[in-house]
């Protein structure tokens, strides 16, 4: 996914239709923090910058950014913009680990059940993966 290299290639994921746009905006900012594309205490793109980059309504971009403000990933410096909080990277990792069970493990088990794959078979697959 990440072609890397350039200084300015932050936010290079593209939007899909699978998920609400504002959720994708907040996830993309999180991904960039996890990959050190945006560092802690650095400014993230403004709502209007995001709106223009992705050709989306600024209200939608703001909704995505606000999720990250509410959970403490970003903080606002009045008149300057939004910045990545100290410790944000670790906090995102921790949260995603917690969500890993719901987002991945549960659907994996549901699909396996539907296909009649036994627990033992599934465990073998995971070990060999």
């Amino acid at each position, binding site marked *: 996914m990440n072609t890397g290299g350039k200084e300015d290639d932050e936010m290079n994921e593209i*939007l899909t*239709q*699978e*998920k*609400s*746009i*504002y959720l994708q905006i907040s996830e993309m900012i999180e991904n960039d923090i996890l990959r050190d594309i945006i560092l802690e205490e650095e400014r993230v793109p403004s709502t*209007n910058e995001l*709106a*223009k980059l*992705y*050709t*989306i*309504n*600024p*209200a*939608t971009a703001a*909704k995505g950014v606000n999720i990250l403000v509410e959970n403490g990933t970003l903080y606002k410096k009045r008149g300057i913009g939004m910045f990545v909080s100290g410790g944000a990277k670790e906090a995102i990792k921790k949260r995603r680990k917690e969500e890993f069970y719901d987002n991945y493990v549960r659907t994996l088990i549901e699909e396996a059940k539907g296909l009649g794959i036994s627990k033992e078979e599934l465990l073998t697959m995971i070990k060999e993966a």
Partner: protein
Amino acid sequence: MNESKLVCTNLVKAYGSKEVLHSINLELERGKIYGFIGRNGAGKTTLLSVASGQNPATSGNITVDGMPVWENQDARDLICFSRELSPMNGNGANTTKVKDYLKAAATYMPNFDKAYADELVNAFGLDTKKRISKLSKGMMSMVTIIVALASKAEFTFLDEPVAGLDIVAREKFYKILLDEFAATGRTFVISTHIIEEAADVFEEVIIIDQGNILLTKNTNDLIESVVHISGKEEEIDSLIADRTVYNTEKIGRSKGATIALKDGEEELDTKGYDVSVQPMNLQQIFVAMCGREA
């Protein structure tokens, strides 16, 4: 100015005995980009022309900032409906040059921004020495867009602005629009048949069908409140029994349905059922709502 609103109340428009707009109630708030979607002949262009005071209503009221719009210059100055250009006019071919057309627009629009219009001419690479009758469909769209944006009107209506544009020019238009919106917070109403690529630009969406407004809703909220479910017919029938159903389709034992979630319901509870629940995009929702065979 932030309180200004454009309000249509019980607006009816009839041509002779044929009523094309049935008691429309619509409120446009300042500082939003509205997407206006409907099938051909649904009444989009008629509503835009009546709401902008270019065409009289048969009955009902249209006000902006509380002022009636019809034959009221102060109110009309707040609204711009830049209509599609035609290569023909009353006298045959429309031989007006683009630059003269823009000059004329500048004289009858009180807030017309000439410098911004020039900037847009350059951005689109338009040759203003050309006569309107000699323009391609895409170039005509550009002229309409330039007049609309440079009008600087509080309420700006664009009727199919991207219809003649290629994908690159469409993307450019939406980016220019977002720039102008970010700078001014003007209200835009944009009709389009190319729904999906514009869906994320629209904060609100207005759906019109056969002269009735079906809904006016925040685009995200609408998309999150409609899902498609499919599975065995009996299971689907039991799941959708007490719900708003927009559309169903059947093949063999399988059935699909487009349904609305209830207020406050975040996702469909399908415990005990073996069905697939899928999100829908704006275009799919629109087809489910308005796509029935006539």
